[in-house]
């Protein structure tokens, strides 16, 4: 089992009300950017990753968002390069590189190979399509997002595995000389993980390539349903999926007293968190989703993606704000409560957090657990204390529990290495009964 420390590296100079008033994190005018604060914070976040390594985490995770105070990791490979040299033991997990938005997969292949080499083989690479706002920011045609993703991915794998030089003529990419000198330290390619927000298309794509799937903080039941779907896709290839095929993100804050944990942990939904990441028109640009996904959206207006529904896409306002200030505050409070009940957010003393995360491990049986630290403006001291408490008290107990549950990670058991005899039914990958039991009496 791998325990991954992760942070959004949030910009800490805006208030919640400023975000509510503007209507989203994305598109907040950069005239508010404080260079000194950001400079200090980039460095503080590296220090926290180092602390996580000292406190026993197996890995540190990074993600990427553009033009957004929600996450200062605008180019995650820059941060990964720094961590490759600063850290000594932890794996560096990228969740992930948005292949379409850089428009240069060959350069991406070089950057990642260098990170893997500098870290002496500690890179875990991840591929994403990039959310809607990333397409806007980088002016990448949303209608070609999936094509760019798939072609770029295949090209990178080929650049790493097929001896060069050779020429490439694709649909979106063309290279007359593919011969990257730097190749990944890990052969044939670095371990890979595919993050997603409950998209079946993404899960099927990952399953077809033996890539583990990482659920980005979804609730237990929808996560379990998607993992079952993934496991079915796997079984159709006569393969048994297991914990090595799955990772799960939980938003975690630990403190010494329940009261303080609850108060500071509220920052896990700072300014509404993900729900106010971007406005409707940027979250789901035309062409970004497949026609079948649009059909699902059209017919299930309540089942929106990142809070986006057909109704919101129909709104007539120039700027479809996620919220107003009063509505924002109210929604954030109720999200904080609801997400704690759902175990999407886990906040408390070390004992409280340990108990709740054990439930997550029992229910979903992941091989990797990402513990995401708070958004917003909380102090670095609070961030460090949470990491220390996790390392000292929570991780040792969770390790024991994961051994008891037999949660092998992708390094202990290669995804796709367990065969099923043709026609043999697959074994369960999640514990639905444990989910039912938890939902019947959720932790208050």
């Amino acid at each position, binding site marked *: 089992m791998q325990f991954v420390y992760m942070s959004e590296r949030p910009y800490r100079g805006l208030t919640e009300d400023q975000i509510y008033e503007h209507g989203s994190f994305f598109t907040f005018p950069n005239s508010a950017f404080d260079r000194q604060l950001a400079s200090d914070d980039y460095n503080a976040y590296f220090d926290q990753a180092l602390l996580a390594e000292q406190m026993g985490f197996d890995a540190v995770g990074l993600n990427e968002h553009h033009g957004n105070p929600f996450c200062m990791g605008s180019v995650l490979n820059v941060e990964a390069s720094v961590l490759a040299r600063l850290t000594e033991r932890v794996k560096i997990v990228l969740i992930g590189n948005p292949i379409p938005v850089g428009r240069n997969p060959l350069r991406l292949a070089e950057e990642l190979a260098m990170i893997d080499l500098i870290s002496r083989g500690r890179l875990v690479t991840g591929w994403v399509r990039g959310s809607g706002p990333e397409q806007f920011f980088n002016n990448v045609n949303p209608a070609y997002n999936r094509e760019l993703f798939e072609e770029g991915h295949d090209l990178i794998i080929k650049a790493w595995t097929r001896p060069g030089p050779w020429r490439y003529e694709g649909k979106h990419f063309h290279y007359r000389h593919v011969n990257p000198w730097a190749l990944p330290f890990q052969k044939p390619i670095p371990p890979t993980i595919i993050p997603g927000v409950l998209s079946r298309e993404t899960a099927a794509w990952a399953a077809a390539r033996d890539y583990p799937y990482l659920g980005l903080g979804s609730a237990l039941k929808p996560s379990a349903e998607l993992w079952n779907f993934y496991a079915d896709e796997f079984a159709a290839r006569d393969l048994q999926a297991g914990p090595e095929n799955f990772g799960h993100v939980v938003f975690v804050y630990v403190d010494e007293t329940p009261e303080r944990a609850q108060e500071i942990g509220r920052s896990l939904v700072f300014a509404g968190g993900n729900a106010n990441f971007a406005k409707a*028109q940027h979250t789901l640009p035309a*062409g970004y989703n497949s026609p079948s996904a*649009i059909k699902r959206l*059209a017919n299930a207006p309540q089942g929106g993606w990142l809070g986006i529904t057909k109704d919101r*896409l129909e709104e007539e306002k120039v700027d479809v704000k996620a919220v107003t200030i009063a509505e924002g505050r109210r929604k954030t409070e109720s999200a904080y409560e609801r997400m704690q009940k759902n175990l999407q957010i886990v906040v408390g003393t070390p004992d409280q957090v340990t108990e709740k995360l054990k439930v997550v491990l029992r229910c979903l049986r992941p091989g990797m657990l990402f513990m995401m630290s708070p958004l917003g403006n909380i102090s670095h001291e609070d961030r460090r204390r949470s990491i220390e408490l996790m390392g000292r008290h929570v991780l040792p107990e969770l390790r024991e529990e994961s051994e008891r549950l037999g949660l092998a990670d992708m390094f202990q058991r290669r995804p796709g290495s367990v065969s099923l005899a043709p026609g043999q039914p697959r074994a369960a990958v999640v514990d639905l009964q444990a989910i039912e039991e938890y939902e019947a009496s959720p932790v208050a």
Partner: protein
Amino acid sequence: MAGELGESVVDVGGVGVVMLEGGSGRPLLMLHDELGFPGWMRWNGDLAGSRRFVIPLQPGFGRTPQVQWFESIRDVGSFYTRMVRESGLGTVDVVGFSAGAWIAAEMAASDPGLFNRMVLVAPLGIRPEEGEIFDFLAVTMRRHIAATVSNQGAEELKEIYGGGISSERFEMFEAARAETSRLAWEPFMFDPTLPHRLDGVSDVETLIIWGDEDQIVPRGCVEGYKRAIKNSRLELIHGAGHRPEIEDRERFVKVVSEFLESPSA
């Protein structure tokens, strides 16, 4: 009214193009805008006594299948050029709206013999010297629709787009916007080479129509067309937005029929 439209599927290079027809008289090719065919409107009815509308539904907009090899509006223009050549319509008149007007201009640029007279209503496709084309792909579908008229109470707009949008129409608008994004995301809704390619077109009499309250296409676009097409003139419709055909139908019908029916210069 839409029930009176004839519908057929025309094979163009293996693609089944859904073709609508209505009215009688000399054929008038109509190219709809980037939101798709809005239905048979009153202005169609006004002209249908003397004109037979021939209306292809753009590939990828929900009815006619998407054509994978299209990469630009110019490609749609080439494809439609072949369609008209093979249709037996002969030299034909055309009216195009917004992105549909851009397609018509592309067709004229690739084969000036295709058209007799051309009406470009609020055409996209040329970079405005001043102002910017409204980024309708950076707003929600509903806001996009609302921006197409200066008067939100315009009667026919309410009939077509008023109230909630059904799931079916939502999917069709999304398909239209997605295909438009695919073809003209960057540069946004113009092709810098188009004015140069139109420069050689001299025999197609062209009427450019523009509502002076258009929120989508700035005046710079239509001025660009006027400069690029030698035999063209610009008709302003005061107080109308991007849909003069429904915002000031009487004036629109008057200028279009006078232009189409006038003796050749």
